């Protein structure tokens, strides 16, 4: 009797184990299929943004070339160029600064991924984060040829090391002529003509290295680690942009000369991409072992997107946000973005994912 029972018990245990295994493998398989589809969208999103980076860099290069052409037309005499073409030069510098911000923002969106993929990490140093050759660590390994034939050996990263201080007159050594750019009768800090030779060389290099990045990124095969990395590095930029929007609501014209324009359109674009990546590539992984956490993360994305959409719609309809409301909206968006990122990182740890970047 007992033997029979034992055998029956063993058989039923085996059947249950088989059923459980089948059901688990079914879940894994479903997760894997969804994940594969999601990973393809991660790559597409990244390539799309890199394409936008290239397009912006080309626009910037053209704008700097136009500026350089004016200077060249006066044989490199900045004073003569200013005397002859005040308005055009002032307009050109304003355009260059706006385009620089757009180009830099495009890069910020994908920076986390670029820095995290071993095959593309060098581009992060060249474009955004690398030191000049005088430093001992994280050197941007490239030389910068200039239109006049000079070559700057390992001069540091292009965005923050060269072009930002150049275009905003932050480094006095690169200022060619101080001028009244905005025509208000006074010359404030930052009102200047910059070195066109260096500007054109650096803007050209931004295009060149963005294109090189696109080529290497095309060969990239995204995996689960990359998907998590992309979401946790891109989502905080949404919080930052909303924070900038909040700050811009406080600033009056008196000091608002160079403050960035509304970032809500950027926020919507990036957030939409992050949400898509999470829902398609990551959610199946997270849900497979913590459905509640997955739901919380999804709710966070929905909440953030609806907050941004609503604020953007109101802004477009002409709403003037008071200090308290702008502050509350900005804080709320940053808080939700922070929470989403924290939860995705906790999910990454739970699933033994490596976050690079």
């Amino acid at each position, binding site marked *: 009797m007992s033997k029979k029972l034992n055998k029956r018990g063993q058989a039923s245990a085996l059947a249950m184990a088989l059923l459980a295994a089948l059901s688990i493998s079914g879940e894994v398989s479903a997760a894997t299929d969804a994940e594969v589809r999601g990973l393809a969208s991660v790559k597409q999103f990244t390539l799309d943004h890199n394409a936008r980076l290239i397009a912006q860099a080309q626009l910037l290069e053209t704008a700097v070339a136009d500026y350089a052409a004016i200077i060249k037309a006066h044989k490199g005499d900045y004073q003569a160029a200013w005397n002859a073409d005040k308005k055009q030069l002032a307009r050109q510098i304003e355009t260059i600064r706006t385009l620089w911000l757009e180009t830099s923002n495009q890069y910020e969106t994908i920076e986390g991924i670029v820095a995290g993929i071993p095959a593309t990490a060098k581009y992060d140093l060249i474009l955004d*984060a690398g*030191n000049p050759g*005088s430093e001992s*660590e*994280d050197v941007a390994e490239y030389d910068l040829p200039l239109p006049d034939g000079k070559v700057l050996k390992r001069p540091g990263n292009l965005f*923050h090391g060269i072009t930002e*201080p150049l275009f*905003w007159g*932050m480094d006095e050594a690169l200022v060619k002529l101080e001028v009244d750019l905005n025509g208000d009768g*006074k*010359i*404030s*800090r*930052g009102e200047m003509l910059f070195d066109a030779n260096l500007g054109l060389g650096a803007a050209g290099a931004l295009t060149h290295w963005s294109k090189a990045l696109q080529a290497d990124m095309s060969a990239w095969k995204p995996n689960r680690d990359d998907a998590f990395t992309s979401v*946790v590095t891109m989502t*905080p930029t949404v919080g930052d942009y909303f924070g900038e929007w*909040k*700050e811009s609501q*406080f*600033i*009056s014209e*008196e*000091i*608002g*000369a*160079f*403050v960035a324009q509304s970032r809500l359109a950027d926020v919507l674009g990036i957030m939409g991409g992050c949400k898509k990546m999470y829902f398609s590539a990551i959610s199946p992984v997270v849900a497979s072992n913590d459905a509640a956490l997955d739901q919380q993360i999804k709710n966070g994305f929905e909440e953030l997107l609806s907050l941004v959409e609503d604020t953007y719609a109101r802004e477009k309809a002409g709403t003037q946000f*008071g*200090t*308290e409301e702008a*502050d509350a909206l*900005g*804080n709320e968006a*940053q*808080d939700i973005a*922070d*929470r989403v*990122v*924290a939860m995705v*990182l*906790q999910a*990454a*740890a739970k699933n033994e994912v490596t*976050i690079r*970047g």
Partner: protein
Amino acid sequence: MKSQFKKNAPWLALGLLASIGLMLAAEWLRPQAVEPGVDLADIPFYQLPFGPDAEGNPRPFWPSRLKTENGRLIEPKTIQSAAACAECHQREFDEWAPSLHAIAGRDVIYEKAVEVNEDLHRNGIEKARFCEGCHAPGEVLAGRTNRFKSVMPSDAETEGLTCVMCHTATHADPVEGNGALTLAVNTGVDQLSNPMILAAPRDHSRAFGATQTNDLIASADFCGACHTENYDSSMSKAVSRQHVQSTFVEWRDSWYGRNDVTCQDCHMAPDPAAYVRQIRDGNLAKPERYAHNFVGSNYLMFDTALGSNLTYLRGGLLPGLTETKNTQLIERQGQATRELLRAAAGLELRHSEVADGQLRFSIAVQNLGAGHNLPTGVIDQKHMWLEVIVRDADGNSLYHSGAFDGVRGETDPDAVIWREDFRDAEGKRIPDHLTFITAEITHLRPGIPPKGEDLVSYQAPLAADVRGPLILETRLWYRVATQEFAYNTLKIDLVIPPFELAAATYSLNGANETRP
């Protein structure tokens, strides 16, 4: 009786044994008390680029010297926001809310400066623990000063030096500085609801007001832990220790330190300027109470004439404040700040002569009311300079040093300036507070010590036909930031206005007029 005891003794013994057994079982089954706080290993993706200390222990907050008493990180949701404390401690909240301590981690100029530094290196965010340890300790202790922020945010971390961060301190090292504080922020707080606090206020008081903490936070040592700043190779390019901020030592070695006039006495007095005048008059009695305003020298963050631009500079509104109330509190503290600044310095003409076609004169710039150097703190930004103008009898300017260009926001580079300079590895001046690439600190002119003075001499050529009497106008100016710094970090066209600390006019034939 005896027989009854004999009869029941086995039962009694059995009962006793059973009770002991039950007690042992209960103790054995009792869930172990959970150590408050969070283990470092439980913070996913936490970066430790600086390695362990000499004993091999992890240094989760390095390069800040901040520590928690039980060595664990904090659980953000257990840290009360100041807005919650305000439900009972409204007066203290209203004093603290406009202070620089409250906005230490959110003031936009500070935030942007940290961002610029973070961008300098790949582990810049982790290096920024050095800054945030004093400016945003809640963020650092929770493990959120990290490239990947896997810890949930909280209101308290946005509040800079919020209530809990001071009221749980158990140890401070004012000479080591760089945030050398130990906080019992995991173990020294209670989690009582408001009704429970009302029911048992002593428990709440014991948690936050432990004798050790109360003694410490009343001492200058406590302030010194953050108001002493040294750069080393962890966060800068310095190969030897560079003294960046020495406020504690300046005080310790001064008349004020010797006479037990502490930081709190002046900066937490209900009327700081009046208290400074009281001390100047020789009355060393302590203030009647200590207010939480921490009145200091940053007049810009209280300049309500800036309107909503001031809200921008202060990083928005703190939790628990409306715009109207915020403005009211800031206006009140702005007044106290300006009065304190005016109580600090004095000017005195010591000598003047005309000989060989030259006018020579000496001005004594005096530190009359500050218990530390003037200026003090990190003075690559906060700086002071002297403006002198010599006029003839018709008011024509014959000599002018230290002029301020209000359009460009720049000071005469040849002025007599009290400032320290950050220099990179090649010796080039860094005007915008880039700590992470600073290799050396030099001084144009070091700050003037407490009750000390700095004698400044001038020589100006005089034409033979100048009509006297000559008038000498002197002004001592103070400014909280350089224009390069404001522009490079914020990229906005904001001229940082200077503040007049003291002024005096002298007729070089003897008649004088001074203010304030």
